[in-house]
Each structure stands twice: as structure tokens, then as C-alpha cells.
């Protein structure tokens, strides 16, 4: 079983309460099971007796995790509570026990067709090609990250192979990735192609702007918690003239409404809505505050559940600043 490789995290988290305040799902459901401790206890029960893998309640709890990794980031010893959930999801899938909704979603995610168009020496993977004039554009769906976090390892590999083929055929040497989850997935996957986040590219290209707007940057789970707090998005926004204020009451909570789970809203729309409501509650002046996120997923979910959110992506913020 994959979870057996995570014995250190199981043993550490199963009786530990030290990061419970940072579980985004726990903070809206108030359930003990939606915390690293609650999940580790369940996984420990599965470890002790494989029969428990058949328990639908347990399976549901594992898919309910938003995988923000805010807890792991906070943890003094960085125990991999997120890796633990990923491991048990793999076990669930390998045992053929994934819930129907998960299987259906996985099937949809397998249907990808990657296309490369345009001209340039770089390859851009994102939604705002106008910011990357010297780049080709690759599009066609999720490159395999969503399948990976759902526990479908082989299917994820197959999708990635298609993506890889398209990238290699483009003959570009740098791949610029905008969505943080895709960046996290792709960053170490190529031998001879450099993978960078779009904010790193835009920062190095420089932004000339006279903007002096106040904004709140919502940290991305993938850029902060999974990639050791990548500084580029903040530096980019500051260089574009945004005065960044702290969102909410602290810099530890994840407000990215399920970004870590990539397709969270597709499986748990009611919970994604609650996560969005919490962001609204935590904002200083939700009707007027300008919120900037690195993740188009986060933006789309916030907008979906409350169109009154004044939220844009980092790339949109840069475009806006350039326009000023």
C-alpha cells in the first residue's frame, strides 16, 4: 500500500493538533475529520486493517481534503500531511474503490488534445498569450496534475506524455506556465527544457507602470506551500506598482478555495462555495478590495460563488498596470 511509505507522517499527525487551525476545509465544516489529525487517524486505521479502505465515509473524507499543504508548510518538521492524502487516494484508485463521481471526472480529464500555435522561442501555457509576444502557445487541458491528485497515476502519466510530445515538438527551450498547479507538476519533468512560472518570466522582462493601487495578494497553495513560497508573484506585483496589504488576519491560512486539489469545485461545489464565503468574510472590505491571485482556478471559483468579488489574476493585474 502506498500509505505504508508514509509511516512517519501517519505517526506524527495522528495525535497532533498543532496545525488544525490551518485546514481550509476544517475551518468551514468544523469537522474533526477535516484536519490532518482526523485524516491521519483514518489512514492509520486503514494501515492497520486494509478492510477499512472499503469504508465510503473514509474515502469521501480523503477526497474532501483541499490539499492546500498550508499545514505542512506551517509544521515545524514539515510532515507531509498532504502527501499522505495523495498516497491514500492512490490506494483507493488502485483498489478500484474511487467514488463514481471521481471516476467520471477522471475519464473527462483523460480526454485532452494539446495544440501548439504561434511563433516564438518560448512556449507559453496559460490564458493570456498577449503578455508573451515572443512565445508560442500550448493549450488543450490539464497536463496530468488533476489526475495525479485524484490518485490516477497511470492515467496522469499518459496525459503528460501527450503534453510532453507537444512541448518537444514545439522545439522551444523554455516553457512558461501560468497556472500554479500545472507549474508545480511540470517544473521537474523535462530534461532539456526550462520550466518557469509566468510571474518569474514577467518579472525578468520588467514592467513599467505608474500604478499606485492598493491590492491584496491571495497566496497560491502551489506557489507558496508546495514551492517554498515563490517570491516572484509578489515582487512582480510590487514592481507593477501595487501596494500589497495582508489579506485577512494572517499569512498562514490558505484562501485559494481548493486550488491544491486542482478540480475541487467539480467534486465538492458546496464546500468550494463555503471556502469562497470564508474568503469574503475575511476580506477587509469585500465589495471594494482589489484581490489578486496567481491562480485562474481560484479567481473563477471566487467569481462563480460571488460575482461581487473584485478579483483578478496576477497576469491580468500586470496587463492592467501596463495599460495605465
Amino acid at each position: 500500500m502506498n500509505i505504508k511509505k508514509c509511516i512517519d507522517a501517519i505517526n506524527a499527525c495522528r495525535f497532533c493538533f498543532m496545525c488544525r487551525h490551518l485546514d481550509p476545509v476544517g475551518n468551514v465544516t468544523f469537522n474533526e475529520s477535516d484536519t490532518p489529525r482526523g485524516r491521519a487517524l483514518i489512514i492509520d486505521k486503514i494501515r492497520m486493517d486494509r478492510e477499512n479502505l472499503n469504508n465510503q465515509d473514509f474515502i469521501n473524507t480523503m477526497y474532501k481534503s483541499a490539499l492546500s499543504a498550508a499545514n505542512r508548510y506551517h509544521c515545524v518538521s514539515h510532515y507531509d500531511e498532504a502527501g499522505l492524502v495523495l498516497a491514500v487516494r492512490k490506494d483507493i484508485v488502485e483498489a478500484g474503490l474511487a467514488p463514481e463521481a471521481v471516476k467520471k471526472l477522471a475519464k473527462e480529464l483523460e480526454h485532452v488534445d494539446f495544440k501548439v500555435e504561434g511563433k516564438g522561442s518560448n512556449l507559453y501555457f496559460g490564458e493570456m498569450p498577449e503578455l508573451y509576444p515572443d512565445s508560442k502557445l500550448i493549450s488543450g487541458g490539464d497536463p496530468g496534475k488533476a489526475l495525479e491528485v485524484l490518485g490516477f497515476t497511470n492515467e496522469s502519466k499518459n496525459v503528460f506524455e501527450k503534453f510532453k510530445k507537444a512541448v518537444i515538438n514545439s522545439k522551444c527551450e523554455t516553457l512558461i506556465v501560468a497556472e500554479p498547479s500545472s507549474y508545480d507538476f511540470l517544473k521537474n519533468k523535462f530534461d532539456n527544457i526550462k520550466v518557469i512560472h509566468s510571474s518569474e518570466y514577467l518579472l525578468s522582462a520588467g514592467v513599467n507602470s505608474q500604478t499606485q493601487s492598493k491590492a491584496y495578494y491571495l497566496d497560491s497553495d502551489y506557489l507558496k506551500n508546495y514551492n517554498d513560497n515563490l517570491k516572484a508573484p509578489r515582487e512582480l506585483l510590487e514592481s507593477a506598482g501595487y501596494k500589497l496589504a495582508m489579506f485577512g488576519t494572517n499569512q498562514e491560512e490558505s484562501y485559494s478555495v481548493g486550488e491544491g486539489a486542482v478540480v475541487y469545485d467539480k467534486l465538492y461545489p458546496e464546500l468550494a462555495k463555503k471556502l469562497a464565503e470564508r474568503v469574503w468574510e475575511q476580506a477587509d472590505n469585500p465589495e471594494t478590495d482589489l484581490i489578486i491571485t496567481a491562480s485562474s482556478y481560484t479567481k473563477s471559483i471566487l467569481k462563480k460563488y460571488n460575482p461581487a468579488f473584485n478579483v483578478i489574476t496576477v497576469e491580468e493585474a500586470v496587463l492592467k498596470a501596463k495599460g495605465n
Partner: protein
Amino acid sequence: MPTVQKSYMYEMIRSELAWVVGEEHIQTTDSDKLGHSIDYYWVPELWHDRGEKLTPPDFIVHPATAKEVSEILKIANTHNIPVIPWGGGSGSQGGALPIYGGIMLDMKRMNKVLSIDPVSMTTTVEVGINTQHLEWEIEKAGYSTMHLPASIACATLGGFIAHRGTGVLSTKYGKMEDMIMSLEVVTPTGEIINTLPVPRHASGPDLTQMFLGSEGTLGVVTKATMKIHPIPESRKFHAFLFKTMHDAMVAGSRIMTSRLRPCVIRLYDEPETAKLIKKVLGIDKQGAYLVFGFDGYEKMVDLEMEQACEICKTLEHEDLGTEMGQSWWDNRYKFFYPPYMFHMPQAFGTLDTVATFSNIEKVYWAMKNTIKENFPQATFIGHFSHWYEWGCMLYARFIIDEPPKDPHEAIALYNKIWDMAIRAAIKEGGVINEHHGVGLKLGRIMKDLYGPAYKVLQDIKKVMDPNNIMNPGKMGFQGKGA
């Protein structure tokens, strides 16, 4: 307990609860029941570790208002079902365990800061709030609760009220019972009451203090008004190493009895200095480590610090300076994260005891010798955590690296250590305990601790909770099966 899951009676009660809180705020899944069957008490942790069956609650209910709590308690009285308030589950005494099943009243949905009064420097909050969230919100408003326990992120304000909890700055800012102004409580029979709005009065005995420490046995606390404080201009620390714990204790008690006002003092005995201070802070020294801090206006901090250091220098010492004091403050929570904290398969317990300065060392030696003489397999370490004008708290711990494999034997040994160590401490004037509470773990000691006065507590419980629905079997009160 009349409810049998899947029986029609179970469904009846579930429907009644759902009418109060809404279907989505009742949990009965195996996932939720597991999380609510284990708190921070070593015994249920061991029980889980050894694959034994735990006792889950029948329903986990998340109320949103005092009115809903009141309705739930009325349902529980009608059906004579236990109700167990649950905050963060971080209590170490088994206080929140559903030992007879029943309704687990998870309070975390009641998590709003309702108001901040900057004139009186108080805040009124729903007590299901996680205390780290509370502190963040109060800090954003420019103040601090100054309630900074190691479990700040683990627990709710209600849990701290229920256990008379304490934070690291207790020496200056007090324990929960000093921090709370007034409470809103739902009594076991469902009345919603408020205690008097100020904590100093001569209008009879203090009801606020009666509910503080009642561990969910006398009702459910739903709202609290507590003090808040300005963020101090300066907070500084200093550490000393003394040859013996006794010397360090003399220094610490002199600081307190001179009426200087440190915000914190902490003294580690020789074994804990050698083990934990080395492991967590990297300070590898033989002796007893003493650290203290002052906060407030910088000029006053410097003056008080100078005086406290002078006191320490009258004894044989090594001055570790400010850096090794600051390092303790910076890492104060690190002690509680894995792998720094003791963990399974180890057996461990915190023999939290409080006593006057005249008695506290006697208490320490009585417990230490009891463990040494009777349980050679156990190690005893301790530090002195919360200091007052008259005495301090001993945070003693016993650790057994390899307890018996058989869970029954392991628990029997564990209980025996507790029993003998605590009774030895009580004989020397120790009170069990200072901030962890009684719960299930220490209920049996209550009669001995209080003597005839315990009947007063029992009578209060009987009158307030005629059907014994509120957290039965805790604090030494009657269980549900009896």
C-alpha cells in the same frame, strides 16, 4: 443510553436534532466519529494505536447559537442522553470523550468575534473560536488577548474556559480565570443565563468563577467577554544556568516575591535541561536552565530586567544572556510538535501540580522519588511553568519508552503511576492541577483532593443537572450507567 444506531429511536432523536440545527450540521459518519473518539489523553490514543475499539458519540452536532444549544439540551433531557461539549479536542484529561456515547456538541461553529470595546479593553466572542484565530483577529485590531498557550492553535476559548487553561504569559496577564470578565452559559436544563458583567463585585459568590473549570459538567459556555491588552512596546528575555534546580528555584521565587512583574518565568530541572533544552534549543549545558521575560514600556522593561538579573547573580550562576533567552521564546511552541513532543509507543503523562514556594520543591521530590522507587522503567523530568506571587506550577512528566505491549497492562501501569505520583504530591501540599483540568483521567482523585468540600460540588451538580446529562462521569461526578 437509549439510542441504538439504525433503530427507529435513533432516527427520532436525529430528526429532532436536525430540526434545531439543520441536517448539514449533524454528523454521524465513521470519519467524524473517529476524530471525536480520541482527544489528547494518552489512553484513547493508546487504544487506537493498539487497534482496540473506541467509544464514539452517537451524533456530532454543530450548533450556531445559544438558542440552538438550549434546544439540544432540552432534547437530551427528554431522552436522557449524555451531552458532551467538544472544543478542539486538545484536552489531555479525556474531558471531551464520549464515554457513554450520546450527543457530541462540537462548538467550533460558534466562532465569531462579536465586538471589541477599545475603551474598557475587552472583547466579546463566541467561545467555539479557535484561540489562534481569535488572537489573529484581536492583533489585527491592534491589541492582544495575551493568552498564548502552546495549544493556541489546537483549542477553543470554550475549552480553555472549561479547563481554566493558561498561556505562556500567565505570570503577568493571568490564567483564564483572570482573563474572563463574564460568561453566557446554557445551563443543563436549557436556560440561557449571563453572569455579572464585571469580575470584581460584592454581589454574592462569583458565578463566572463557578463555571470556569466546570468542564462541561454544569452547562455549555456559549459566549465570553474577556480582557484585551495593548501590544507592548518591548518584550525582552534573559536566561541563566544554575548548578542546581534548587538554586534556580531560589532565584525565580525571589524575583516573584520581590514583586517584580515578569510576563514569564520558566525553570527546567537538570534532566529536562539536558534532554529537551538541548534537543529543541541546542543549548548543551549541565545544570538548571532559567529563563524570564518582561514586557511593557522599554524603560521599565530594562529596569525590571536589570533588577531580576541582579537577583540571579547573587547565586552561583552562568549568565546565558539575552540571546539564549530570546531563543527560548522564539521556539516556545516547537517543544510541542512532533518529533520533539513525546509520542507513541512511549507512555507519558504530564503531572501538572501547583503549590506554594514553600511546598513546590517538596512536591517535586515527592513525585520524583515515588516514580524512581516504584517505576524504574519510567523517567521523570520537569519544569516550572507558571509563576505567581505565592508559588508556581510544576509541569512534571513521566516517560516510559517501552510500555507493555498489552494495552490493558499498559493502561494499568499508567494509572498506577498517576495515582501514586499524585497522591504523593497532594500529601506535600500540591494541588492537582494548575491548568489541564480533571476530566476522566483524574476524577477519582477529586474526593481526596477536596475532602468533605467535594460534596458541595456534587450537590451543585445534582441541582443544576437533575438528569445528569452534562458530560457524565467527568470530574469525579456520577457516570451515566450508575
